[in-house]
């Protein structure tokens, strides 16, 4: 049957039409096919890119919060979560290296600032509170009568620091519950005056915990640092002596009438 079928099929093809330009037509079709495939590939790539972009946008929109939650501010009691001392605060930037050198942390203490004043909390390496540091700036054009701790109404003899800064340091540990190291310093060229006070923890009944986080020498170093005078804004100043919004210093800065 095999040979017979082959012979039979030959006769079936008797009416075969002649070939025309089928060969060229094949190559024309091949070129069209390639173009269509290229276009389909590009279209598919565009669709894929669009899908990826849309998916990324949708995921970003869905997964990321619309509004970033406000940064929590360390509270006085949150000592274990104390922020690093090196933060973008010019006053703090001056104090932080001194505090860090004592293996402690310093961070803003709410209410942490006002016009002409700042206050900070100090914690030791275990996160236990070690009191506060308060800094205020005043503008005193006339000569200043630096108070005497033990003799109200008298003027203290001042000491001098470079850059025309006169100052008086006050160390007071008479009250075990309120031990302070304070300095009042005035730049005589423009009357700009700063007060810095370090205080230990109050109301603990523990004299060691009531010791200020900074020593008297460190407070003096800070208060006579000429950079401290310029860390506050030019228009910033406290107006009332240890009252109002400004910190209450152990030795108030006399502002005159």
């Amino acid at each position, binding site marked *: 049957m095999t040979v017979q079928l082959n012979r039979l099929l030959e*006769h*079936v*093809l008797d009416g*075969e*039409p002649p070939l025309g330009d*089928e060969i060229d037509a*094949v*190559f024309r079709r*091949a070129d069209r096919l390639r173009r269509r495939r290229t276009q389909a590939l590009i279209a598919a790539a565009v669709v894929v890119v669009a899908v990826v972009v849309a998916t990324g946008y949708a995921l970003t929109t869905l997964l990321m919060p619309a509004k970033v939650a406000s940064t929590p501010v360390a509270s006085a009691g949150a000592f274990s979560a104390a922020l690093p001392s090196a933060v973008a605060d010019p006053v703090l930037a001056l104090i932080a290296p001194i505090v860090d050198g004592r293996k402690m942390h310093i961070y803003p203490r709410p209410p942490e600032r006002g016009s002409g004043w700042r206050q900070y909390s100090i914690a030791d390496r275990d996160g236990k509170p070690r009191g506060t540091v308060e800094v205020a700036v005043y503008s005193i054009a006339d000569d200043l009568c630096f108070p005497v701790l033990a003799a109200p109404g008298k003027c203290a003899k001042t000491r001098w620091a470079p850059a025309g800064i006169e100052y008086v340091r006050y160390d007071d540990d008479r009250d075990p519950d309120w031990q302070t190291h304070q300095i009042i310093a005035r730049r005589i060229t423009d009357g700009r005056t700063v007060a810095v006070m370090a205080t230990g923890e109050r109301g603990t009944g523990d004299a060691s915990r009531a010791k200020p986080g900074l020593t008297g020498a460190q407070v003096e170093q800070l208060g006579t640092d000429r950079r401290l005078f310029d860390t506050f804004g030019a228009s910033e100043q406290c107006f009332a002596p240890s009252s109002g919004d400004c910190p209450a210093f152990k030795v108030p800065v006399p502002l005159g009438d």
Partner: protein
Amino acid sequence: MSGDDDGLRDFVTSRLKHLRRSAFLMCGDWKLATELTEACLARVVADSRRGAVADPDVYAYADLMETCRRRNRRREHVFVASAGAGGVAAESILLLDALHKLAPRCRAVLVLRHWDGFDADAVSAMLDLDDERVAAYERAGLAALERLLTDSEAALTG
């Protein structure tokens, strides 16, 4: 040959006539056979240019048979002589009619084995069948064809 247009042109020139005849035996229409053959060879050329064709003969016949099989899924007993063709012998018409009464895959096995002369291995590769299936299709197809032809001749003479 892949990607070489001269080689591809030689391949197309040498295979076009054979492929068109095989397509005609599969579909029974010279015009349709020409169309299917052109499309098949265009795919061979395009895929060869991008290096996707290992054996162009296997690729071409496999593609052509699959295309014809899809078009003839419904067994249509149609034979269309070419325009202007001379008289076609009654035996030829009977043979074509009998061939088209077979299932497309069975018909493809007979065409590839008995007209194109491929061995069973090549046919199994072209039609994606194992050797046993090819042999079974061939035996059954030849027997059915013989019976159909006998019946048709008996009808003609009777």
